[in-house]
């Protein structure tokens, strides 16, 4: 039994010794280096471009401008292809553009024999612009007189739904209705490995791309669309990747390197973004303005949640049209007995393009939802935890959005366990009558999330298992290891179902779209949930073939045989070894008259989507005079179903918590409202937490068994980042009596709020 234990990660020894190879660790003779020429303004039309000085530099092979690229608009969001034209992603990109839409947009590209020459030449491309008015904020972009950033105008999509009853009646039934407007900033992913990709051709019409991507199979399709090539003529290889967090769930560099190598006779061309480019010219997390209302009765019943999201998608649509809606459909799981009304609009603006980022709109949404829920609890005079306990999902509830019976639900236990862990009641009493300028407070915030994208998108995963001559098994999956540990947990599952040791499962970590079973990749916290049935079914199949062959070899009836700890045994006497697997494997390969290579391959579509749950409890100390927040204690509680690998699960939670704390307290891309100029597009000025900024992180799991997964597991990669912001916000309110509705809650923000409240 390996599921539920924490065997050594498949990739960890290679990683600590530097043996894992990432995209930049591969080189090819004659590889050329490319460098973008980026716009120096946020909005305008190129009036002239002069490449002669760049071309004159020795070592420069080519310069391409917007005039040289295909005129086919393509989408970049890493979603599965949709058969429904209305559900396809927004195609609004060209490889290079003469209509620049943010500070850093791509107008030309230089290819040279080395990186330094490419950089020098890119600086010598002279571009002149006709400047257009710049819209940075939602208000500016949505104003009647706003210039259209794309031909169809600045609104990308509006959506709305109401479930669980009539919102008007729910409002009338409420004794109190609270409303708040919440704002969240542009956040950057800051994975340690920048975006990087290279491409070459290995035949007249066969293209190979090696890329740091979360979605190799989607990448192949989008490159095909962008360059009008048959998808089968493109091969995408994904080696180890240095983090993605959603930023590599977008097709960013691959169409360009593919275009360049085709233009240059198939020689290898590499595009490696510098850190500063990677921060502003890939994707970001959407800045949102959220108006939220909560209605409650005096007895503590939450009757209404009404949320409106205005989502600033920036220069290109990317995932913009789907993010508010995805978050909207996932938050309904949390308080399923309240009537929920949701509406959202996403729009263009002249700021870097926003895309997918860990938890896909939910951290923003729950900042608002758990803000007004807190307010409703306080207004009716009910304890924050009690109010949530009364209204949270319980087993047997129907989720209002999907109409499905809820799966496993551990929300109540998460709240109860967290309340005890932080000693809620005791501390609440202790801090009730504080005086002075250094004050303590407690906060709680909950979340719900999904385990994939179904029914919005297809959920498909594939697994291939091969029995090796030495009795071990090779596993190939389309699921991508991006640091979250999917190779490890999927190997645990295969070992468990096959009845062999974890160490006997070798995972082919690299995805290669020419040979890897189809899977759309790592996103939506789907990977373990949707790959599990594929791994399970493949393992059952292979086990069946192994036992069939054992029966052939031994003459023992197949029904009497089983596989346990890597040996064929009698089902009723698991200690009695009939045949070691090595012997069976050799026979299957090399016996002249029977057997063959024993393999199994399956492709499975998942048509369920298990909600996962959890919450954050936090104790803060607020220094009023210094406007500083210090986290004294913070704990995340999760219902992610069965925990497959506890050590890695804790690691996912720690990482999400640190990102959530960064979003709550420090992180924000600063953009000039008038010019669209970016002030802090580097790691020195854009503050991600260092280990000095993060407190001790605590987490715990409420283990449930979800019936829709063969191993009982639900999502865990993305949920840990959702609830720190609102929990910290609620704790600051508890400590100081001041409500903050904007992230990040920096000293500057606290100062203005404290001053307004008369505290300083």
């Amino acid at each position, binding site marked *: 039994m390996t599921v539920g234990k*924490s065997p*050594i*990660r498949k*990739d*960890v*020894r*290679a*990683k*600590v*010794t*530097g*043996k*894992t*190879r*990432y995209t*930049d*660790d591969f080189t090819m003779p004659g590889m050329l280096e490319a460098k973008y020429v980026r716009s120096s303004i946020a909005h305008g039309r190129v009036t002239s471009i002069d490449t002669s000085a760049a071309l004159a530099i020795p070592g420069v092979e080519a310069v391409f401008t917007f005039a040289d690229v295909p005129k086919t608009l393509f989408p970049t969001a890493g979603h599965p292809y949709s058969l429904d034209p209305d559900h396809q992603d927004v195609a609004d990109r060209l490889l290079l553009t003469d209509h620049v839409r943010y500070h850093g947009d791509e107008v030309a590209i230089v290819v040279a024999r080395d990186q*330094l020459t490419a950089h020098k030449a890119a600086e010598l491309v002279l571009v002149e612009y006709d400047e257009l008015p710049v819209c940075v904020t939602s208000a500016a972009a949505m104003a009647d007189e706003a210039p259209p950033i794309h031909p169809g105008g600045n609104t990308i999509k509006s959506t709305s739904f109401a479930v669980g009853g009539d919102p008007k009646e729910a409002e009338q039934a409420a004794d109190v209705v609270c409303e708040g407007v919440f704002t969240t900033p542009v956040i950057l*992913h*800051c*994975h*340690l*490995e*920048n975006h990087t990709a290279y491409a070459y051709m290995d035949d007249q019409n066969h293209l190979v791309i090696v890329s740091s991507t979360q979605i190799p199979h989607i990448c192949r399709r989008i490159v095909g669309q962008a360059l009008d090539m048959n998808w089968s003529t493109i091969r995408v290889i994904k080696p*180890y*990747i*240095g*983090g993605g*967090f959603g930023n590599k769930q977008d097709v960013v560099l691959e169409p360009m390197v593919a275009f360049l190598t085709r233009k240059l006779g198939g020689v290898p061309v590499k595009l490696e973004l*510098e*850190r500063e480019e990677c921060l502003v010219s890939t994707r970001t997390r959407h800045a949102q303005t959220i108006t939220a209302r909560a209605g409650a009765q005096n007895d503590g019943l939450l009757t209404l949640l009404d949320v409106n999201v205005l989502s600033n998608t920036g220069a290109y649509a990317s995932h913009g049209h789907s993010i508010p809606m995805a978050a909207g459909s996932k938050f309904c799981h949390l308080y399923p007995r309240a009537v929920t009304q949701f509406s959202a609009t996403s729009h263009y603006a002249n700021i870097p393009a926003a895309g997918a980022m860990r938890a896909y709109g939910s951290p923003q949404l729950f900042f608002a939802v758990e803000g007004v829920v807190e307010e409703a609890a306080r207004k009716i005079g009910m304890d924050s935890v009690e109010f949530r306990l009364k209204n949270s999902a319980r087993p047997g509830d129907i989720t209002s959005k999907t109409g499905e019976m809820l799966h496993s639900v551990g929300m109540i236990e998460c709240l109860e366990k967290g309340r005890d862990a932080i000693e809620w009641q005791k501390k609440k009493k202790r801090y009730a009558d504080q005086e002075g300028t250094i004050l303590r407070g407690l906060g709680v915030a909950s979340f719900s999330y999904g385990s994939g994208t179904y029914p919005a998108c297809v959920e498909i995963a594939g697994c291939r298992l091969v029995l090796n001559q030495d009795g071990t098994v090779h596993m190939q999956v389309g699921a991508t290891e*991006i*640091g*979250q*540990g999917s190779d490890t947990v999927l190997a645990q599952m295969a070992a468990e179902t096959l009845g062999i040791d974890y160490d006997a499962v070798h995972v082919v970590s690299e995805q290669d779209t020419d040979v890897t079973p189809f899977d759309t990749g790592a996103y939506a916290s789907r990977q373990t949930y949707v790959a599990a049935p594929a791994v399970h079914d493949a393992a059952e199949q292979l086990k069946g073939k192994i036992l069939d062959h054992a029966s052939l070899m031994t003459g023992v009836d197949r029904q009497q045989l089983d596989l346990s700890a890597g040996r064929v045994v009698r089902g009723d006497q698991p200690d009695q070894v009939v045949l070691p697997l090595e012997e069976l494997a050799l026979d299957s390969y090399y016996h002249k008259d029977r057997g063959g290579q024993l393999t199994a391959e399956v492709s499975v579509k998942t048509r369920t989507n298990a909600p996962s749950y959890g919450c954050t409890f936090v104790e803060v100390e607020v220094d009023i005079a210094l406007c500083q927040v210090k986290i004294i204690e913070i704990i995340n509680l999760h219902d992610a179903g069965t925990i497959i690998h506890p*050590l*890695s699960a*804790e*690691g996912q939670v*720690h*990482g*999400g*918590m*640190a*990102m959530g704390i960064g979003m709550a307290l420090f992180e924000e891309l600063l953009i000039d409202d008038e010019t669209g100029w970016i002030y802090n597009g*580097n*790691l*020195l000025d854009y503050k*991600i*937490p*260092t*280990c*000095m900024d*993060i407190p*001790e*992180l605590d987490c715990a799991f409420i283990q449930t068994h979800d019936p829709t997964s063969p191993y009982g597991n639900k999502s865990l990669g993305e949920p840990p980042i959702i609830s720190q912001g609102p929990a910290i916000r609620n704790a600051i309110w508890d400590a100081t009596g001041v409500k903050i509705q904007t992230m990040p809650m920096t000293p500057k923000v606290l100062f203005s709020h404290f001053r307004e409240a008369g505290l300083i």
Partner: protein
Amino acid sequence: MQSRTISMQINGKSYQEEVDVRKSLMELLRELGLTSVKQGCGVGECGACTVLVDDIAVDSCLYLAVWADNKAIRTAEGECRGEQLSPVQQAYVEEGAVQCGFCTPGLIMASTAFLEKNQGKKPGREEIRRGHAGNLCRCTGYQTIISAVEKAAEK
């Protein structure tokens, strides 16, 4: 292009290289196949390129290759002896301190230098945090990294 010939030890082996004077130590090490040395920013913000120069941790992206003349360089590749991981590497493995792995080699070298400097002492978690503030990690929240260093200090 101006170049200069330098001699150095890398992970105990002698090298003599003619290098472009503009080249960083990071670039040189990667060209020599030591790809554990990662570029995360190129300007000393992230620490992914941390190596030891005469046992002192430096950002090799900010350190010119020519400055390494007559010095001894250590990288993550050289810390294990065959199959045997160094105590720091082993502690990172056991504590689950590795996710995407891109910051890992640099952090392992930072931890190695930190523990060698504090040999015989038992640094507390706050002290460990201060000693690793120059290395960014976006995956782990640092929790298990601090625990790994604590554990390695006990060995």
